[in-house]
């Protein structure tokens, strides 16, 4: 029985494995936020935790960090490596190995010089620097700011509505043959009811094409044609579950397949030559390699684009035999497409881990990219956002623990730390770290602001 069993469903074995190998660096003074971040990272199952300490004059009350560290100690030799260093000293070591970290989390850094120094180190290392999550909380407010040094690729975005890769508009020859084995004109309703609805939809599309329709198909057109080809079997056909499904999913025939454009979008703005082999994160390199491979395959075959079939078929009303035959077709084609990717990789002498290759091929449509911001860690200093501005003022220039003033634009901003808001941010920033480490789900791009008085929040790009 594994402790992390339950998490697997969210980010898969590959994601959990990345977490279990990850090394996270947390920078900042001993605050409730820091201890919340520690706790959440350890619970997520990271392998190494480094704390770059900032001495802090004002000691916050609600600390159980000492106990927390005691709990971490027995883990130190086993699952968890733990080390502490002084931030100031670390910043003065030109040889300090920052690249080993998967993510760097800055919590409540109050000194501008530390921020400037770290930003300079980051700049010097080019792309070979881990993503930085800078977070600060004051009173009932806070922000998280993500600064990437290299393009971050999301392997699986897990969108709320997932589309199946059915290829209704552009079936491959074996699928066309399969569809042709069903002749609706020579069939009774009983036989009809055993046909998968995707077959009905493909028949409609084929008919529309025969009738000279070349543009984008509308739902109304689809429904009309569906009736044209089905009703001759008898009016009762409308009660058949596969007919009902065909009608319900008719819109699947209408969405244009824009995979070519998607791929172009994913590859745009990547100054690949600049990166060379200097990728900080192997997954980013591997996903980019796979994207380029798809492009190559298309070019070699003189096609506009190449997209590996994901190979999964949704459940649908059908006879078991028809369904299994159809499912096999999708599986065989998916395997074939995957092997084309593998062959192309081999030809260009590139290596990608098998797990990434598998996930990529079966979830190609879920790949996303996030470009590094135009600004850097100092982006927070030149912003037109009033709340961020106010927070940055408190963070770097004002004395802490000013009591609340009614006239304040942001009520409850300049009050003492509130543990609940710290707990909220500890959860949120580690959530983002997990997304970055696992390459599952889309992280914040790139500034998140929160108002704990009314639970409002917003994401901005700076």
């Amino acid at each position, binding site marked *: 029985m594994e402790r992390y069993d339950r998490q697997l469903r969210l980010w898969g074995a590959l994601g959990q494995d990345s977490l279990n190998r990850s090394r996270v660096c947390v920078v900042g003074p001993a605050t409730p936020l820091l201890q919340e971040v520690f706790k959440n990272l350890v619970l997520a199952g990271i392998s190494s935790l480094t704390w770059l300490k900032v001495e802090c004059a004002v000691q916050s009350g609600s600390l159980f960090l000492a106990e927390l560290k005691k709990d971490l100690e027995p883990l130190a030799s086993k699952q968890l490596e733990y080390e502490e260093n002084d931030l100031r000293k670390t910043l003065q070591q030109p040889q300090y190995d920052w690249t080993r970290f998967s993510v760097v989390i800055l919590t409540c850094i109050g000194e501008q010089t530390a921020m400037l120094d770290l930003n300079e180190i980051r700049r010097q290392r080019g792309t070979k620097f881990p993503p930085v999550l800078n977070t600060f909380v004051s009173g009932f407010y806070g922000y998280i700011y993500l600064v990437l040094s290299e393009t971050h690729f999301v392997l699986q975005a897990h969108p709320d509505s997932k589309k199946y890769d059915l290829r209704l508009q552009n079936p491959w020859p074996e699928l066309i043959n399969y569809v042709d084995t069903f002749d609706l004109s020579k069939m009774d309703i009983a036989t009809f009811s055993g046909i998968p609805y995707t077959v009905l939809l493909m028949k409609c599309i084929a008919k529309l094409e025969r009738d000279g329709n070349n543009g984008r198909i509308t739902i109304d057109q689809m429904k009309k044609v569906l009736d044209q080809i089905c009703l001759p079997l008898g009016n009762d056909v409308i009660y058949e579950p596969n007919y009902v499904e065909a009608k*319900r999913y008719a819109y699947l025939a209408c969405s244009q397949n824009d995979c070519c454009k998607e791929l172009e979008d994913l590859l745009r703005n990547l100054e690949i030559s600049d990166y060379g082999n200097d990728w900080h994160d192997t997954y980013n390199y591997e996903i980019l390699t796979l994207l380029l491979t798809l492009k190559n395959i298309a070019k070699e075959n003189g096609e506009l684009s190449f997209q590996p079939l994901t190979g999964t078929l949704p459940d649908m009303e059908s006879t078991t035999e028809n369904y299994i035959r159809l499912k096999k077709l999708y599986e065989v084609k998916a395997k074939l497409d995957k092997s084309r990717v593998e062959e192309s990789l081999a030809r260009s002498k590139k290596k990608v881990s098998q797990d990434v290759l598998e996930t990529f091929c079966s979830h190609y449509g879920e790949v996303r990219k996030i470009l590094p911001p135009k600004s850097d860690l100092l982006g927070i200093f030149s912003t037109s956002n009033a709340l961020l501005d106010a927070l940055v003022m408190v963070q770097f220039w004002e004395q802490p*623990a000013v009591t609340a003033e009614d006239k304040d634009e942001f009520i409850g901003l300049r009050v*003492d730390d509130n543990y*609940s*808001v710290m707990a909220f941010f*500890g*959860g*949120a920033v580690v959530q983002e770290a997990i997304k970055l480490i696992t390459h599952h789900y889309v992280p914040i791009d790139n500034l998140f602001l929160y108002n704990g008085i009314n639970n409002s929040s917003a994401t901005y790009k700076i």
Partner: protein
Amino acid sequence: MPRETSLVTIIGEDSYKKLRSSRCLLVGAGGIGSELLKDIILMEFGEIHIVDLDTIDLSNLNRQFLFRQKDIKQPKSTTAVKAVQHFNNSKLVPYQGNVMDISTFPLHWFEQFDIIFNALDNLAARRYVNKISQFLSLPLIESGTAGFDGYMQPIIPGKTECFECTKKETPKTFPVCTIRSTPSQPIHCIVWAKNFLFNQLFASETSGNEDDNDQDWGTDDAEEIKRIKQETNELYELQKIIISRDASRIPEILNKLFIQDINKLLAIENLWKTRTKPVPLSDSQINTPTKTAQSASNSVGTIQEQISNFINITQKLMDRYPKEQNHIEFDKDDADTLEFVATAANIRSHIFNIPMKSVFDIKQIAGNIIPAIATTNAIVAGASSLISLRVLNLLKYAPTTKYTDLNMAFTAKASNLSQNRYLSNPKLAPPNKNCPVCSKVCRGVIKLSSDCLNKMKLSDFVVLIREKYSYPQDISLLDASNQRLLFDYDFEDLNDRTLSEINLGNGSIILFSDEEGDTMIRKAIELFLDVDDELPCNTCSLPDVEVPLIKANNSPSKNEEEEKNEKGADVVATTNSHGKDGIVILDDDEGEITIDAEPINGSKKRPVDTEISEAPSNKRTKLVNEPTNSDIVELD
């Protein structure tokens, strides 16, 4: 240990004093619960009472920071309290028990609290606490998470929506001890088969060669170490059978899982006081080979077929195991793994007297279980504890003038950029006029001494209520917990019985309705019987509740729709409280294209509501009449 605190500066002296003298109840010490406990301790509530039924399980440890390896099998509530001692400045009172157990937690027990935090993992208890909060007008902060999704909703009775006002896509998780020891629904067995058994046999790392002396047990208790070792070894033994590829040893697996382990559970007598005992398989069932039954995926088959299917599929997976580098992942689209989970779940269901499910159903369910994760729990707990300051109106610079100005919070899965938000914060809505729990009827608590329960006749009781709230002669009285008619104009058989003789007791909820009014009727009232032995003899004190006159159902009215629903309310209330136990069934990765799909666990509330409310009211009486009579006969 005195600690310097900064909360005074945040909320001011007066509010701080108020906070230090408040008492709160935390229901649940699991994932969100342990986060919440820490947050509200650090918020410095004066007194915190924690109720949790569960003991700690290994799979809790990655989400519940208060618990360590040495705490496994200990009650969550007491362990949590022990774990926070070192940073605690509040009085903590733990209880191991079921919050719905009226004998341990009678209604008057809840009255001591100023606010309730729900950190529950099942729907039935959520509904129950919601109801309690309505009866006592206690503010409730409701919360839940599933994966990256979570929500927090403050409920202020009479002022804002209650938990049942709208149908929500409530993320729910399952209690671990239910999965491991006391399943009561098919889903519990499916989760056991998939997340526990399957992973243990086919997807976990072999850990046999680990050096025991080098192991971090997290405890020095030799007994405890022995027990953990034993558990680990037993499971390792099962995995060894898989590795051996010796199909003749499969009955050993059956014997361990479905006879030995069940007998061990039976030995823990406490578990079976209020539950049906499981019945282990018999040796003959395991060892009698039957012909392979290839049942269709949409039928269930007999237990004997399940057993032989289990043996066959285990053999098949055994053969696959070494070919797949000793690691097979459960995948609902991998027919073998699905079949294994389905048969194992069904055998377990059979043992626990739970209906078995077809492979097709199990596929739907097994594919949609979403686990809770620590980070979302932390986010939701943070938001919950924070809002309590505003619910209790302790923030002077952000005073709560209207409760509907407060916000709830929903976290969005992947910080969806297109929507440009990370969490949404709709303002609280006022109560839904048609909500059967908070709005359809008036509500109050009758305080009774137990001698009064044994002495008072139903007829006297009816008169008492009728006079107190000015009801007309023609009324009806229902036992709302089971829709049993106790009294109406042509049913007076029970009049001479005492309240206890007609099975009313502590925790009973009765519904008193006007059946006479033509155009205007007195609104119905739901009364909770709170029996308290501390009360002086002959106490039967009715609550001071204003029960207004409202337009009757049959009068011509613009609000006909509303009125119609009114009649159905009582019936609906029970329909709901019999609701299914909460399990996460979100339409996640099947989630496909179906915008119009019914959530699997979708509430059938509305259809039932309409159906019943359309029936004429005398039909309703009849409907409840029959079971009532038979109930009463048994009493004699």
